[in-house]
């Protein structure tokens, strides 16, 4: 039993990270009925931009760079956590502008478009930063390990899980507790009526999409110190994101969160007790759940079903 506890804890922290990775994807699928296949590439881009900003050669004029580098790493990191998603959000904005032509058509077109965008972003990453790996530096306060119950744990992991929980809470407040969230939900449900209520739907969609891409970028920044940074890292993110959404059910916020935790627990426990099955276990979990619950745990009927 005591052997099991660390693995449960590990599974939960892992689950929070999975939920964080899926969050931006979930927003765009749930609120815009668009599958954003570029989610993974934007995730990677977030990590790269953050690495560039916190690294020794920030993309700034020499004087500013000196000032910036004089700041302690902790400050730079904290600032980056805000700046990098904004930069990635601008790319998201570009994608949304292209995406507009697919609204109201077969969702396959949005898929094709974002697949193309994903390829372009990955190749641009390779052109700008090369094929090598990078490391995202994190402040020493959240780095290293600590001893707990005879085992060494990674501090960063708990920090990451904490941030993930915080961001999940923030997104929840935004969607469930603000008028903006309500408008977005209404827009997803019935786009005509929100327009007839005087709401600028294109701006609303733009905001949601950009917000989704910013969340992808944040997930990239948070996960990068664990996974490492490389051009094709996005693929590693987009698949779990998919999985979490389907498991939780399209359009369900808590579905995604619970599914993320479930997947984390499943992978974590399988890693300890049936290690070779750990990655496969999440697919088996998905098939098992979706066989009995057609729309995932809390999924609703979606426009994308037709």
């Amino acid at each position: 039993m005591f052997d099991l506890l660390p693995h449960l804890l590990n599974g939960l922290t892992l689950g929070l990270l999975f939920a964080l990775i899926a969050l931006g994807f979930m927003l765009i699928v749930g609120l815009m009925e668009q599958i954003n296949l570029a989610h993974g590439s934007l995730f990677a881009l977030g990590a790269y931009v953050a690495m560039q900003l916190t690294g020794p050669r920030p993309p700034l004029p020499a004087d500013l760079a000196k000032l910036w580098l004089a700041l302690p790493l902790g400050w730079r990191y904290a600032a980056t956590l805000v700046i990098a998603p904004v930069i990635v959000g601008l790319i998201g904005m570009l994608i949304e502008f292209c995406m507009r032509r697919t609204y109201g058509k077969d969702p396959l077109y949005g898929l094709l478009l974002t697949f193309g965008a994903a390829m372009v972003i990955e190749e641009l990453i390779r052109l700008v930063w090369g094929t090598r790996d990078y490391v995202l530096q994190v402040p020493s306060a959240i780095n290293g390990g600590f001893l707990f119950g005879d085992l060494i744990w990674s501090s960063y992991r708990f920090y990451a899980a904490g941030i993930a929980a915080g961001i999940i809470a923030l997104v929840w407040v935004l969607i469930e507790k603000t008028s903006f969230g309500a408008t977005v939900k209404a827009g997803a449900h019935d786009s005509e009526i929100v327009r007839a209520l005087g709401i600028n739907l294109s701006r609303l969609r733009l905001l949601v999409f950009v917000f989704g891409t910013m969340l992808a970028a944040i997930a990239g920044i948070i996960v990068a110190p664990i996974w490492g940074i490389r051009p094709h890292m996005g693929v590693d993110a987009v698949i779990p994101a998919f999985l979490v959404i389907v498991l939780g059910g399209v359009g369900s916020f808590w579905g995604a969160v619970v599914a993320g935790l479930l997947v984390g627990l499943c992978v974590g426990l399988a890693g300890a007790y049936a290690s070779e099955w750990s990655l496969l276990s999440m697919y088996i979990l998905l098939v098992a759940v979706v066989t009995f619950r057609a729309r995932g745990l809390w999924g609703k009927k979606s426009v994308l079903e037709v």
Partner: protein
Amino acid sequence: MRGRQISRRSVLKGSLMASVIGGTGSFFGPWRENHAWAQGAKPIKLGLTCDASGQYGNSGQDDFRGIKMAIDEFNAKGGVLGRQVTFITADTETTPATGSRVAERFITREDCTILVGALHSGVANAITQVASKYGVIYMNTNSSAPSEAGENCSRVKFVWDGNGTNFSKASVKNSVDSIGKNWMLLTNDYVWGHTTSAATKAQVEAAGGRIIDNLLVPQNTRDFTAYLLKIQQAKPDVVATAIGGDDIKALREQVAQLKLDGKPAWINNQQDWPDVWGAPDSLFGVFGTTWYHKLQLPGVAEFVKKWQAANKDGPIPVPGNVSYNGYMSTRELLRAIERAGSTNNVKIIKELENLKVSATDRMQHFDAYMDPVTHQMQQTIYLARRNAKPADNTDLFEIISWTEPKSAADDAAPTKCKLTPYEQVPTVDS
């Protein structure tokens, strides 16, 4: 069927026929470079099958830099047999199916008579199959699965990297004696991982140690916390890893963050320089390599300078084992052509099979030789660990031992490798 007229014995004849069927052969289409060769000497064209994207995109490009350097050196000296050496390269995407197609293109469309470059064993196998169909020589520069020189060996393929068995033989016995007998294995759940771990296991047991657990890690694992916890719970003396690709990079990060390096001791397989360079702070444990740019041997410093001059502002500041293997294999290939005095494939193969390179020439501690039975280069195997007192920011390794080729040789390989007889190799000449 018209195609049956084309002889399968010779690529050259085949492509000639194709152009005869197609007309005069003078029109080469919009993409074909159409040179008039000076003095009628047609260049020797190499096809460089280097990954530029996918898991080994980074290493593939480092491989390419070494290969290109050797080609440039020969061309600066006036080429080989008085002919220039040219090349073409295309992204093999770390995908075997692409490797296959690229190899077909290079051989049948670009008239390459030799292929060079490999990281991923699947891609290398795909290329090998196409190459051996046409009898085209293939330099497997950096794919280090033991099977490359075992069951998947080929008469036309030469393997230039040390493999998992070589590294285990160099590292295990010593570690069992000096560190402890309880070993745990961390094995990537695919062929390379399994064969590498099997080699380690055999060595551990032969040295009187025992394997207390073998954790199989699925490919594409990014989070190793579950395994690290499990290892801490099991408390082995030594953990031997056979984790490759992007997975080992993630593992390195995570072990480094926890500072788990030390208790237990970690024995890793070969760490490729392009992978290390991206995350130098995460090096941990003891690991293998075939070459290091700060070896205290004659010629190394000059080589590094030349390499740097050729790759100014490149993503990696110094050559590592991957670039080294690319360079060495290409250089020895071109030398073999010179010695053979011919570009006939079987003649070159025979030259390479009898290849012996002195320690000085290889910039390693011991003389190296090509094993004629397995086609694997038998070379010095180095063990290294993270350098606590680096001389500069590229000085990441501390070399702790070097093992001579014979002591690190994979004894099982010759029984697994069956090379096709020369007579069955299609003739290739350029």
